């Protein structure tokens, strides 16, 4: 697979933020996920759980609850505001003050006409959902304590509200409380402490299920207001509940990091009366499970340990398929690192700052596998704090290292970097073109003469850069008039082509010489996760969320021969079974047949000159190849050369001097920065 000098970078202190809330839209199969820093992420469950969109957070916005109404997404937080999001421009559409103090929960009625929010001051406020906005309608009867959780009855006539020490059932029409269900406090020392009903679920047969801070999951009869059964699940809190759509199963997330499943089962085969029975326990988290979604086939959980875990229920999915595997999504499905290839510099993107590092140097030569002494240590050149409250959504470093740009939802900033000896001077480019207000994706031309910024409606703004100023050149527009944001951009090395990919799976290629659309790649059903244009052959290589690799010739405007062969033969099953998407594609200038790509757990060199592996061949064969004699090796080698030496990869990139940069972020390092989990008695400790 070729030998590389590898810069193994472990100084990117990327720290994801805790998962606070989740909402699942059954119709579009999109999961909305809110993190503690206010960022929102959208995952497409029908497309290999790909993280399609990210709405950056904002200081002071703490999302406490999320709610889908049709295709509209609402959030509410402890800042007392309701926010609706613009999912096409990846920014909040509007925010509305609810005037009830911090909002703990938001829930829409099943008909999608009204929103109910639970406020700190004890009111449940009903908002009417209008075409463009929402409008306050009325308050339900005010209670003494804060409203922690809300759940609508599927008929939309009743609302159950979890509070301190009790659950109230409201008539949504009249606003009167009809029942008052007292929740027992914990035993022992916690007797004096109020019990918090963290979560309630109102089922269609008028059963109410509640999870509380005393560790109980309780089943109530909502008609009579009586307790049917108590399941003591944990010594700590039950923080989240989620019920499947058909109400046959529910899950409860606890502070111990466990998710407990309850199923609605009949006690004997021939009887029809059913009961909620505790069945499985899943332990995939080390910390609190704050957010839970029970889809028809899987339990999706997230919490303080920042990982999103998709645990398929084996009784609902086909066994031993890609779908039945447990997935842990720890890293974003986009690159947070941009690499100045010529200058040997790395730009790390954090929500509130950027870090510019110069890679170390070494003159040593060693055997493969050796670590070489470092002559010059890697050095942090610049730490750039962002301005304003909005978090950084994208950033880019020019290949020469002379330009740096980042964007928030409200502004784009461009900086000029100059190096003299060991000093770095950074100057902000003051006069930016008016059209450059915000960008979803930023990209520099390989010769650092142009900056491409994707803006709304899939258009790309081209800005020419010279010395210390910039000039607006053109706006590239699609013909199709798609409104989805561009999430990937790639310019060819010769400066002729620019490829863009938007979240609706469309890929456009522009001719930069003529500044117009060259072609549109046939739409493939899965979202592209990485695109790149080959420097010599001008073929566009695209990798999709379902792990397919396509190569499209820009000259012939058709898929290349190799791509057709690959499609005909099919990819290796082990390749298709990988659960993290390829997030970066580069090429080896030394060997034009090599394509370098990576996901979280491996990087791979595809040699287009070698035969493709057949279905039964060993995919991960580098170790066996090494042990074989030279002649045998040729016979056994195939196009996919996979290296798993480096794990938890955030970036793999090839520098100008043919050394490889590998940015790792071990999960253990993330886990060690988390707060301590709740104390649990472990056997034999």
């Amino acid at each position, binding site marked *: 697979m070729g030998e590389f000098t590898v810069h193994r970078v472990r100084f990117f202190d990327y720290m994801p933020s805790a998962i606070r809330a989740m909402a699942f839209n059954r119709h579009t199969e999109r999961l909305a996920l809110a993190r503690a820093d206010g960022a929102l992420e959208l995952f497409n469950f029908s497309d290999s759980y790909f993280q399609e969109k990210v709405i950056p957070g904002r200081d002071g916005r703490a999302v406490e609850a999320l709610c889908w109404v049709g295709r509209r997404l609402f959030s509410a937080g402890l800042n007392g505001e309701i926010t609706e999001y613009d999912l096409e421009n990846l920014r909040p559409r509007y925010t509305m003050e609810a005037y009830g103090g911090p909002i703990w929960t938001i829930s829409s009625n099943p008909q999608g006409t009204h929103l109910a929010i639970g406020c700190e001051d004890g009111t449940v406020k009903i908002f009417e959902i209008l075409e463009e906005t929402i409008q306050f309608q009325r308050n339900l009867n005010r209670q003494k304590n804060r409203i922690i959780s809300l759940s609508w009855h599927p008929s939309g006539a009743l609302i159950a509200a979890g509070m301190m020490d009790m659950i109230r059932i409201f008539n949504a029409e009249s606003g009167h409380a009809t029942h008052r269900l007292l929740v027992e406090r914990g035993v022992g020392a916690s007797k004096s402490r109020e019990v918090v009903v963290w979560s309630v679920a109102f089922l269609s047969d008028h059963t109410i299920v509640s999870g509380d801070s005393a560790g109980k999951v309780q089943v109530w009869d909502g008609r009579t207001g009586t307790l049917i059964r108590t*399941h*003591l699940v944990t010594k700590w809190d039950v923080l989240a509940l989620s019920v499947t759509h058909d109400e046959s199963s529910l899950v409860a997330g606890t502070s111990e990091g466990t998710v407990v499943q309850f199923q609605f089962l009949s006690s004997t085969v021939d009887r029809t009366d059913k009961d909620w029975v505790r069945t499985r326990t899943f332990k995939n988290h080390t910390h609190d499970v704050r957010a839970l979604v029970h889809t028809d086939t899987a339990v999706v959980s997230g919490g303080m340990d920042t990982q999103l875990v998709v645990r398929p229920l084996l009784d609902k999915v086909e066994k031993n398929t890609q779908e039945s595997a447990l997935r842990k999504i720890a890293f974003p499905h986009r690159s947070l690192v941009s690499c100045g290839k010529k200058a040997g510099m790395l730009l790390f993107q954090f929500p509130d700052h950027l870090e510019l590092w110069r890679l170390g140097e070494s003159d040593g030569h060693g055997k493969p596998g050796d670590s070489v002494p470092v002559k010059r240590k890697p050095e942090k050149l610049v730490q750039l704090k962002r301005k304003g409250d909005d978090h950084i959504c994208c950033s880019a470093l020019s290949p020469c290292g002379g330009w740096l740009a980042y964007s928030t939802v409200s502004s784009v900033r461009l900086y000029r970097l100059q190096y003299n000896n060991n000093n770095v001077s950074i100057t902000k480019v003051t006069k930016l073109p008016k059209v450059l207000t915000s960008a979803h994706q930023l990209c520099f031309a390989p010769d650092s003469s142009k900056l491409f910024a994707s803006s709304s409606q899939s258009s790309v703004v081209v800005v020419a850069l010279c010395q210390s100023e910039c000039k607006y050149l053109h706006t590239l527009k699609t013909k199709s008039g798609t409104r989805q944001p561009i999430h990937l951009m790639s310019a060819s090395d010769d400066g002729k082509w620019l490829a863009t990919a938007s979240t609706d799976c469309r890929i456009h290629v522009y001719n930069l010489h003529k500044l117009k659309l060259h072609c549109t790649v046939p739409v493939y059903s899965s979202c592209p996760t990485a695109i790149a244009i080959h420097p010599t052959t001008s073929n566009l290589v695209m990798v999709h969320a379902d792990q397919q690799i396509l190569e499209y010739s820009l000259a012939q405007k058709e898929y290349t021969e190799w791509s057709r062969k690959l499609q005909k033969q099919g990819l290796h099953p082990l390749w298709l079974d990988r659960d993290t998407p390829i997030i970066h594609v580069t090429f080896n200038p030394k060997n034009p047949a090599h394509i370098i790509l990576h996901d979280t757990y491996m990087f791979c060199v595809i040699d287009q000159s070698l035969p493709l592996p057949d279905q039964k061949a060993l995919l991960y064969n580098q170790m066996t190849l090494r042990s074989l004699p030279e002649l045998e090796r040729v016979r056994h080698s195939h196009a996919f050369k996979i290296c798993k030496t480096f794990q938890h990869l955030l970036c793999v990139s090839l520098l100008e001097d043919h050394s490889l940069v590998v940015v790792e972020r071990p999960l253990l390092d993330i886990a060690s920065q988390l707060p301590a989990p709740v104390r649990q008695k472990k056997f034999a400790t």
Partner: protein
Amino acid sequence: MVEHGDIRVVHRGGSKINFRVPVITNDSRFLLCASGECVKVFSTSTEECIHDLQGHTDLVTGVVLNPSNHLQVYSCSEDGTIRLWDFTDGILIKTLVIGYPIYSFYASANHGGVLFIVSPMINDRRSEACQLAAVHLPPSGDQLVEAREISSVLSDVSSNPAAVAFSRGGEYIASAKDLQLEVYFFKKEKSYRFSLKEHNNKGARNKFTCVSCHPTDDCIATGHEDGKIRLWRNFNHKREYTYSTLHWHHSAVSSLCFTPEGTNLLSGGVESVLVQWRYEQESQQDFLPRLGAAITHIAVSPDGALFCTSHADNKITIIQSCVKVSAVLQGLVKGESVRTDLMVDPRSKALVLNGKPGHLQFYSLQRDKQLYNLDIVQQEYIHQSGLEQFEVVKAAFDARGNWLATVEERKQKDLELELNLKLWAYDEQTQSFVLNTTVSAPHEARITAMCFCHAADSQTTMLASASKDGHFKAWQLGEPAHTEEGPSWSCDFVGAYHGLVPECCCFSADGSLLAISFQEVVTVWSPASWELLTTLSQPPGAIRDLCFGQLSCSKYLLGTTAKNLLCCWNLLTCSLEWSTAMDVGLLLADPLSENMAAFCCQAGCTDLFVFKPSEPRPLFSHKAVCSGKVTHAVFAPREEMLESCGESSQWLNRSQLYFLTQYMDLLTFSTKAEEDRLMASSKQLVIDDSVAVTPFYLLLGKHRQEKQETLTSLCPERTQLPQGSVAIKELLHTPAHVLPSTSYLCSMFVRSLLISIKDTREEDDPNEEEMESEKEEEGDSEGEMEPSASGQRSSSSGQTQESGAPALTKAQGRELRRVKKLDHSWLSSLLDS
């Protein structure tokens, strides 16, 4: 009377009672358990063994109550038969011949006339696999029936009986093997299989160990090797089955049982804690800890009031409503090995060997009951694997049973051997052994042999111990010291011989000689002066066993060598008397006769030779006593001498030879005469089972009998009384025309049931009753030896009522006598039925 070759190897006493799950009868009064080749019936309240249901010729592998008659019990055995018993009377009702070894069997109330057996695959005998088959009970009323209708139900089942369970109402059967649970629905004739992964990423061992079905709900509980319990539900779907996991045990769950109402689930394992899980509220558990040893089986009485747990140390504990241990049935404790030899306590004549960890057990072979445990180590035993703890490795009694010497040792990795020699004195007042002296580190290395001087007349007892450190020591009880604590033991002499390691030591019968073997050399010392008298040697081969002859043969010293030689030295001439080439694994002398027993291991089997040292010809030889090596054996003195004149069985007259096989089975030799006597006594044994047999009752009954015997001294040879049921039989079998008229019988019968005030007053005076009976006795004392003679039975049975349970009034007695004259004597026995 006794012919040659009538000596047979039998299991007598000490068999496992924890082999299979015990059964509690419907009225919770009896507990039935498989024990070797018989089924034992215990009383749950008094711990007394009431019946031995004997008849099987191989290991009994299962006991199940007859679902259609709760007074009957089925038992199955590896001899390929199923037998139906009436356990209240101990009668074999029916024998069903299957023809294949049966490993376990099950019955269900909803499958009338069908038993489910687990037996090896009928088609493929070689493989280890077992199958579950349904046996249709033939309707014929014969005693011995052959079952022809056998149909296979499940093909691959575990031979472990805990791994198969019937559901509520017998709708389905659950069977677990290795990593697969199979549920077979009888109605649909369809089975569902659920598999687990062998290991999950956390290293859990998922293999199934046991299964239990909920009595009312569709819920199957399974135990696993890693201590988890899974509750399976919804298993009538291929995919949508579900289970929840309970985890308390840290090692494999060995037994699971639902209570009859299904409100609780009981589980047990090596932790020796009975865990009671509330069904549907599994987070709440109750524990009954410190049950002594690992739980192997759990059973619940049908009314749910009694639980019983079998333990790995051959014990059954009966527990009342999960709070109180109400009774303990203790069998012979058999660990993996017996480090101490088998011994016989000279006082109680009990067999003494290692019992519970750190204990010596005293086991009465005659009564097949453990007498008591002596705590030697006196340290808490911790149930944990890999933890080295003190073990009793040697023990010895002196001739009169006044002293007991024990050696305990602990060898921890990388640490020096810890040794303790303890001497225990018998305390008459407490009737037990009391620690007298503890010698820590009596030797520097492991003790190889230890023996007391057996001279009955010597004033001071002496103990000799030999050790791997090359020394042997003699210990003697010192003079009473200045302190008030009484005499204690101290070392008297330390000897060595050319730095060789002493292996065996043995005192001569009179205590005047001590023989110690040093590899190939036998040294003979005088304990009085501690001088080396002579050395005997017969190379090659190190001495393995050393034994002085007893009684008239005391001039002989016998030894076996590792090079297959049995040597006999004459101590008077100090020369080899004779030697023979035999691979003797174990040599021991009968203390009550001149006989010696030698166990020879040949080709995987052990042969026994019994001989006198003075005679060249063996008295008795038995080929292939058992498979494997016999490592421990003992001559146990009989309580009464056996009167058999057969030449080959004479050696068994005074004492009985017990030996332990490789598989820790305690076997013995029994003669024909002995067996006949046993059979006779078991036939004669009559205990009124309608009353729970309490020790008090037995005591009282004996007392009464004695009293009666003094009264009825005129008939010293009173036989046991025949049973009441015989009379009814006779009544039913007698032709109707010879019976008295029904009206006559009826009125008398009804009158017997009436209670009059006058009668009760009379009954209060037992003396008068007994006088009455005495008078009767005088009349009929002659022919009582033949209980078959119908004419005489009336008197004896009449007497039963009057003396044992005075239920007859005077008037009735008179009536009875009148009837008797009519020679309808059997009728009287009707009255007590």
